[in-house]
């Protein structure tokens, strides 16, 4: 892997860790609910990152989040790992299939939905039992709205960011070689 790509992955993973610290300050209207600010770095590079780099970034994000939140040694880490994997898989799939017809808002909302469905299913199966379904509707609705909101933020940053423009050029240049 080239130094440039290692640097980019490291920066994005560090940004995800930073957003995890910010997320800690935000109150949770529903238990286990997260806005998912740490997904912002994944969203902004979704249009041009290679799939394997997306997978590496997702893994680094989950580990960083676990470190920052102190959940690395708990079931929350596994929930986060499976939720993020599902979310990134769905987002990459829909973005690649949908192309120009899909916006970051829609992709982000779908990613949030996938992550939350997986986490509720795991919670029902392994931790809290069928009672977990009680929190499913508000969890899914608020999570999807938060996902769409993140998509708006990511879209706005993608349009204006000079750094992202430079990164996009570098990646496309590398792919063309």
């Amino acid at each position, binding site marked *: *892997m080239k*130094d*440039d790509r*290692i*640097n*980019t*992955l*490291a*920066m994005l*993973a*560090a*940004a995800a*860790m*930073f957003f995890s*610290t910010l997320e*800690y*300050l*935000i*109150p*949770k209207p529903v238990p286990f609910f997260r806005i998912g600010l740490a997904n912002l770095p994944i969203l902004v590079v979704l249009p041009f990152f290679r799939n394997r780099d997306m997978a*590496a970034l997702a893994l*680094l994000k989950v580990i*960083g989040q676990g*470190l*920052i*939140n*102190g959940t*690395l*040694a708990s079931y929350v880490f596994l929930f986060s790992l499976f939720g993020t994997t599902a979310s990134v898989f769905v987002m990459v799939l829909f973005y690649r299939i949908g192309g120009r017809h899909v916006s970051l808002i829609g992709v982000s909302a779908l990613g949030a939905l996938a992550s939350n469905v997986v986490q509720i299913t795991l919670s029902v199966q392994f931790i809290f039992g069928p009672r977990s379904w009680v929190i499913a509707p508000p969890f899914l609705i608020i999570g999807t709205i938060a996902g769409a909101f993140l998509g708006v933020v990511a879209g*706005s*940053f993608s349009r*204006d*960011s*000079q*750094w*992202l423009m*430079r*990164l996009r050029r570098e990646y496309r240049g590398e792919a063309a070689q």
Partner: protein
Amino acid sequence: MSLRRQRPWMLRNISATLLFYGGIATLPAFLFQSDIIIRAAQVVLFGVLAVFAGKRLQWAYFLSVLATVTLFHLLVPSGAVLADPLGVPITAGALRTGLYKGLTIVGMVFLSLASVRADLRIPGQVGAILGKTFWSFEQIMERRSTIEIRSIGSGVDRLLMGLSNDLTQLDADAQVEDTQSRKGTARRSSPVGALVVGTIVALQWTLLFL
């Protein structure tokens, strides 16, 4: 850069690699610690170590993080009511959970700041990514005050642009031996330096089993 502000003793006696692995070895002992008093003491220790490692700590900011996390947890009552100011119950369970979580996040940031420095080089691609991730996180935490609320997007953009340039510079420095940024830093730890790091790590694990 952080290296200039580091205590010369640390630079001369403790290598960046030992410092990093010391931080990694301390991490589980901190995360598994369930005693809130010990955890608070660990946070203070990590903060002091971060200062000794040359990092600028804004104690007021971290206190406000701790207060905010605790406050939000108090909104969901749990356990015995300790006090009832202005009709808002302060419950023991919520207070403990809030403080515990707040101390966890502040402690993790302090530990990261204390154990990562600019001349850290971990072999292999995974090592490179991990080392640079922690270094970038430390830099973001140091530079976050440059981001203004009114223009968050452009502030973040400038920060990332600067960080990207600095990472490229780090790579260039790594290829040139005896560059200014590494001059005077220990490639290998001295016995005393290793003893200090070992003692701190051993102390954290001892506290876990008390």
